[in-house]
């Protein structure tokens, strides 16, 4: 059962990931990303992280990706431009990517496979799934990082606000 779910959603994640990367239209790419994220969320559940899975769907797929969609539509950059040599991906770039990614993927996967192979997992434990210890971790040991994240989000808000504001607006000010 678990295997089936894994296989289905893994396949789904892969296919949608390829679509994200390969589709000409960014809107489709974005939508495919939602699928990937959702599929990954399912895998998170399988891996005993339902809380993260929830967040994945709510925050990631629900909020962040929607932001993407919103911007894409705002800018109306429906398609990648294809005309003109400037915009074509050069052969160096293409082959470099292919070769590099091939080697990287091959090496990484080989190492992963060789390291973990068919290593089986311990059964799921309560502590892993529980939220309370997670909260304890967050607000105690990793409090510093949490505080930084707070500042980070503040920064993001201010930064996005300034960057996206029309320059004309401040000329008056």
């Amino acid at each position, binding site marked *: 059962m678990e295997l089936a779910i894994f296989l289905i959603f893994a396949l789904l994640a892969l296919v949608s990931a390829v679509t994200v990367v390969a589709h000409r239209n960014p809107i489709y790419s974005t939508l495919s990303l939602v699928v990937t994220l959702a599929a990954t969320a399912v895998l998170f559940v399988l891996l005993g992280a339902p809380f993260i899975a929830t967040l994945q769907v709510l925050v990631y797929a629900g909020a962040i990706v929607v932001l993407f969609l919103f911007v894409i539509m705002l800018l109306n950059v429906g398609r990648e431009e294809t005309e003109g040599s400037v915009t074509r*991906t050069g052969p160096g*770039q293409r082959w470099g990517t292919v070769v*590099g*990614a091939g080697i*990287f993927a091959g090496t990484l996967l080989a190492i992963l496979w060789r390291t973990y192979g068919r290593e089986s997992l311990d059964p799921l434990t309560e502590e892993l799934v529980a939220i309370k210890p997670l909260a304890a971790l967050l607000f105690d040991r990793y409090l510093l990082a949490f505080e930084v994240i707070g500042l980070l989000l503040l920064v993001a808000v201010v930064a996005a606000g300034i960057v996206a504001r029309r320059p004309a607006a401040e000329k008056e000010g």
Partner: protein
Amino acid sequence: MEAQNLLWLIPALPFAGAALNGILGPKAPRWSTNAVALGAPLASLLVAVICLFDFFAQAAPRPAIEQIVYAWTTGPLSIDVAFLLDQLSAVMLFVVTFVGFLIHLYSAGYMAHEEGYQRYFVYLNLFMGSMLLLVLGNNFLVMFMGWEGVGLCSYLLIGYYYQETTPPAAGKKAFIVNRIGDFGFLAGILAIFDRFGTLEFREVFARITADGGAASGTYALGLTFASFVALCLFIGAMGKSAQIPLYVWLPDAMAGPTPVSALIHAATMVTAGVYMVARANVIYQLAPDISLFVAVIGALTAIFAATIGLAQNDIKKVLAYSTVSQLGYMFLAAGVGAYSMAIFHLGTHAFFKALLFLGSGSVIHAMSGEQDMRQMGGLRKHLPITFWTFFVGWLAIAGVPGLAGFFSKDAILAATFSANKVLWVIGLITAGITAFYMSRLVYLTFFGKFRGSHEQEHHLHESPWTMTVPLVILAVGSVVAGWIGLPPVLAEVNQFDHFLAPVIQPLDAGEHGAHHLSHTTEWILIAASVGVALAGIFLARRLYKDRGLAAEQAFSERAPGVQRLLEGKYFVDELYDRFIVRPTAWLAKMCFKVVDSLVIEGSIGVGTFLTELTGDLARFSTTGNVRNYALYFFLGVVALFWWMIL
């Protein structure tokens, strides 16, 4: 005895004169310039006379008088500025101060109307000082100082007429050729100092005599130490005394004012080489191979220059070649071991050659600067004093018995005869040629008809007293100077030889030849040389006395090759130019254009160019496209990862 405290004044006074006149400048009144310019050498002459009196007042063998003025350097190299008055330098001192003063006096008249009168005397005083330094120095270094100093003055005085093209060039040539000789001199000094740690003459000679290894074994260039040093020093002498192959500067040096030619390029400076060889006679005695070389060079120079002298038309050029030729005699003498005879000839030559030059100066003065004998003729009538004094000089150089040149030249020939017959023959022939070309000069100049322009004829006049007085004095000298060295056939012993004996002691008495000639042989030799001289004179008389240049033209038509060769001075200058000067210039150009500009600068240029090129090519890696940058990152990571795990 004052001499050992006064010696330093002898060179110092002329130096002071030069400095004073230099400071007073060209705008100083003529009287003050004259007072300083003539006063300084006169004072020097007087001091010299005092010192000489002191010296001669000593009982024979008179010990040398030495004055150490100050320590020139300190430390391991300790050399003093010190002066030495011994028999050898006494002779030179007298010649230099006496002839020198006379020529100063003469110059006051000769140069009276020249621009830069004061400058001239600054140089001349400077020369006197340097020459006296050379003569009086008690070590090789002081001698070298004077040696170079006179070279400088020679340069300045040859180039006195600096606004013309030739004189400065001739001066430059003189200096540079001299420098080539100095190269040898300096090398010799280095070797001496290296071996003995001193440069003081007497110490060096004592040590080299005591040093068994000096005259045997191989030191450098396959020569013994003594030979090496002798050769080096002789190279110096070659330059200074205008011997083959370094004689080329002397004829050109005639571009200077005539009194200069008389003083520097006839009487004093050019004989410095002979003096030096005589001074270093100990070394030469230890180096028989080099002595022979010296003799050969001397003989060759003598005849070579004499033949060139045959075909020159410039009155001073003839005298110049004659000087070269006579210097050859002196080296011939030195080479065969008759050092005292070399000095003897040096002394007599100083008188008669100075006389001849000054006489020619008087002629030129009268001719308003004309030096070509073809434009002269019959000047006897216009310049009586000049003619008669010149006449004396002519007879003296030609070797007419009784006059100075006869005794000294004869002594040299006698010494050569006992040493080497081939050289003697050369010397004898040279004597004949000398008589011939000098007679040619006299006949072309003073006899026959005047061949110059009317204007020149109009201007002909006898010179002022400042010029004629020295002529007369020198003429007297040219007669009597030889009597101090009468040959053994006339006197019991050659007084001059005897006088110099303390300085020039044969290391190996048995070999010293001239004294052992029998009287008969000597008489025969004298007869031979007199005969040759008279033959030369009479041949010239027949050819030139009345007919002027006609005979010469006829000869040149018959044998144009010989004429051209002689007139062209065997084209030695051209050969030097072709085979030494131009290749060197080419080399220098190559050094600059190829090595410096092309190879070194080029490789630097290529280096910078390649650096910039690399940069310029590499800059295109920053394409402006951020995807490329990401790819660099990615590929970098992949490559480094592989490198890490391999």
